[in-house]
Structures are given as C-alpha cells and as structure tokens.
C-alpha cells in the first residue's frame, strides 16, 4: 500500500493499453486498472479493417490480446478494480477502488465510452429480450429472422452488414435522409441485397410481453407513426441500437473540465489538473477510433514521463 506508482491508467481499452505500453517501456512503474474486462468497446467488434498494420482478419479480441501481451512484456501491472473516488489535486494522486487504494504521481484517464440508448419507452425493459447493443453477442439469435438497426454512423452500418450474415432481412432506421458512415462502407451496404433503409425515421416505442413483438416508428418529416409488427411465424425481431456514445466520465464531474461530458485536454492530452491526462474515447475530439485512441495513449504516457521528470526529480 505504500507503493506509489509513476502512472496509474484507468481503463484497459486501446488508449489505456497503448499508454501502458509506452509508460512501462520508459521504465515507469505503471498500473492499469480495469473495472470489468480488458478491451473496451472494440472487443465486441468482429472485424477491424482500419487499424493500420494489424494482422489480416484482425478482430477486436485478437487486437486487444496482442496489446495486453505487449504492455505486460514491458512490465505494466494490470488489476481488476472499480475506481469509486479520486483525489487528483495533490502532488500524489489518490484513487480509491472497491478493492484497494492506489497512489500515483500521474493519472491517465482512459475510461472510454459506452453505447448511447434510444431513450424510448420499452427499450430498457426489453434489453436482452430483443433490444441489443452488441451484434457479435446477439446476432446468432436472429438467424433467418428480421432485424432492425438504429443509427446511421460507421458503427450502425458496419454492424448491420455483420448482421446480414445471420438475418434474412436487415433494415437500417436512420433519423436523417443520408448516412454519416464512411463512403466505402455505405457503398457496400447499398450493394447488399439483404439491406433495407428507412430514412427520416425514429423509434418511438418498443413493445412486447417478455420479448420484442412490435415497435412504433415515426417519420420525422411527415409525423406519421407506423407500427412494425413481428412476422407471425418468427414471433419476434431484433432491434440493434448504434446511436452514438456516452463518455464514462461521471467520476470526474466537477473535478476536471469537460465539454458535453467529454474530458477537455490540450494536444498533449493534459487536462486542467497538473499530472492528470486523458486519452481515447472519453476525450473531447473529432474522431473516435482505435487508431486515435492508441495515439492519445502514447502521447499521454510520454507527457506523463515528462511531467514526472519536471516535478519529481531530486
């Protein structure tokens, strides 16, 4: 307990692991604390085609496995614990977890984000009962059935394409009249016979007794509300939700400067508190991808090292 780490990293996704790799390689005493499971959001992704240099057919889990190995090889410690309280203002930062208390000269926040919900009636009650936020987890239930995907960004379209391998029909419901996803992904989606599109449409309510049986959708242009009812033989359909993300930053509210819940940093990943850095999806920035998360992590670790040299050398 008297141990003081040079760097404690909160979160073991790509940003945290990259920070861990860089920090431990610089011979800093490094700990990565993860509340649940290594990997962050990328572990539920089946295909990682846009991470430069990754092995062929890389999946989220295979990429993370390698990142964990690399960080461990350089000596980063890893621990499962949920941080409940932080004292970041002092020269030595204190992180109070459920299991233990950690002291550190610097802290890198890499807590990531989680999928945003639609926020309509029935959504919470029917989660795990037809409403899903993870295509790789739940696609197998809908073999030869119908599924709807809500959203229009990269994640929505890519996951919809993954679902076409299982479902007989995949309908993308999007509130605008065009997709936000990258053009190359869009082209593939429009060429796929199983893919259908409902434009200018939002989900108003999800209904069902124990499992999803129907939903109400509204055309935002005309105001017309339609009920989509499950095929009688199937008895149900899937609703996969990919409508953006919510940063995991509640712990730092009122302590660290934020913008819409995302942590604000300068280009060196420094927050408003000296010795505290942020990296990855939890940070306010324009592109949230593995490639930008790992870059953030590397910068944060390098800056943490610099900060320690400037503030702790005898």
């Amino acid at each position, binding site marked *: 307990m008297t141990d003081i780490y040079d760097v404690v990293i909160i979160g073991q996704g790509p940003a945290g692991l990259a920070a861990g790799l860089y920090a431990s390689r610089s011979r800093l005493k490094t700990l990565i604390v993860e509340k649940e499971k290594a*990997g962050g959001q990328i572990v539920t992704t089946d295909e990682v085609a846009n991470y430069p240099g990754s092995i062929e057919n890389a999946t989220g889990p295979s990429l993370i496995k390698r990142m964990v190995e690399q960080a461990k090889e350089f000596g980063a410690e890893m621990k499962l614990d949920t941080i409940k309280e932080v004292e970041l203002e002092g020269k030595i930062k204190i992180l109070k977890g459920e299991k233990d208390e950690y002291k550190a000269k610097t802290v890198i926040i890499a807590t990531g984000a989680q999928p945003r919900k639609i926020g309509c009636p029935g959504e919470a009650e029917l*989660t*795990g*009962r037809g409403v*899903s936020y993870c295509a*790789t*987890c739940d*696609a197998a239930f809908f*073999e030869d059935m119908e599924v709807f995907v809500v959203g229009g960004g990269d994640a929505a379209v890519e996951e919809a394409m993954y679902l076409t391998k299982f479902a007989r029909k995949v309908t993308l419901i999007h509130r605008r009249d065009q997709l936000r996803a990258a053009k190359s992904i869009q082209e593939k989606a429009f060429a796929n016979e199983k893919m259908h599109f409902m434009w200018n449409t939002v989900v108003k309510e999800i209904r069902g007794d124990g*499992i999803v049986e129907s939903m109400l959708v509204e055309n935002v242009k005309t105001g017309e509300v339609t009920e989509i009812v499950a095929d009688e033989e199937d008895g149900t359909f899937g609703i996969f939700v990919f409508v953006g993300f919510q940063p995991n930053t509640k712990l730092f509210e009122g302590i660290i400067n934020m913008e819409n819940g995302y942590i604000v940093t300068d280009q060196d990943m420094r927050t408003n508190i000296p010795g505290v850095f942020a990296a990855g999806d939890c940070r306010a920035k324009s592109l949230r991808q593995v490639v930008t998360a790992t870059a953030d992590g590397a910068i944060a670790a390098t800056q943490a090292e610099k900060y320690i040299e400037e503030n702790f050398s005898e």
Partner: protein
Amino acid sequence: MIELNKDNFEEEVLKAEGPVLVDYWGPTCEPCKALMPHVHALAEKYGDKVKFASLDITKARRLAIKQKVLGLPAIIIYKDGQEVERLSESQATAEAVEEMVKKYI
C-alpha cells in the same frame, strides 16, 4: 457446471427442484467469455446450494428464445422450474451475479 442442451434442459432446469442458475452464452460473445470464469468460481463456492448450468445458445437457439432470452450474456435463476430473476447484458457483472445467487441459498 452442467452443460445444457435441447435434450437435457427440461430435466435439469424446468423439472428440477430448488434453485438452478443458467448461464446463457455464445462463442462469439466476448462479454460472456469474460464473465464465464467468475460464474465457474461461484459454482465452486455455492455449488452445493444452487445448481449451476450453462447453455450455448448457438446449439439451442429456439430453446433460448422460448425462455425469452434474446441477448447475451443472460444469467437466469430458476426455482422449481420457474424463472425468478435474471441479469442480462451490461447488468451481468461478476458482483451482481454473486449478489443474486446469495438470495437463493
């Protein structure tokens, strides 16, 4: 832990007396795989009071849907063949599962 399938589900779960925990999972479900060792540890700890079982849904999809399971992971406790409590998707953490199991011992 008992491995369930289409043939033994009724016997081992629905016709069983006392509490049975069923861990619904699938081979492509990463959160399920992360949770699984914790459930095994709970089976070691509480296995004399609660029966622990797992079902790979890709081998018994219709059966899972009939149990109103359409999302993974799902951890359900049955008592005398009736579902009494479940944790699904992000609710299904190691701690939450242990808390739930403790209620039925």
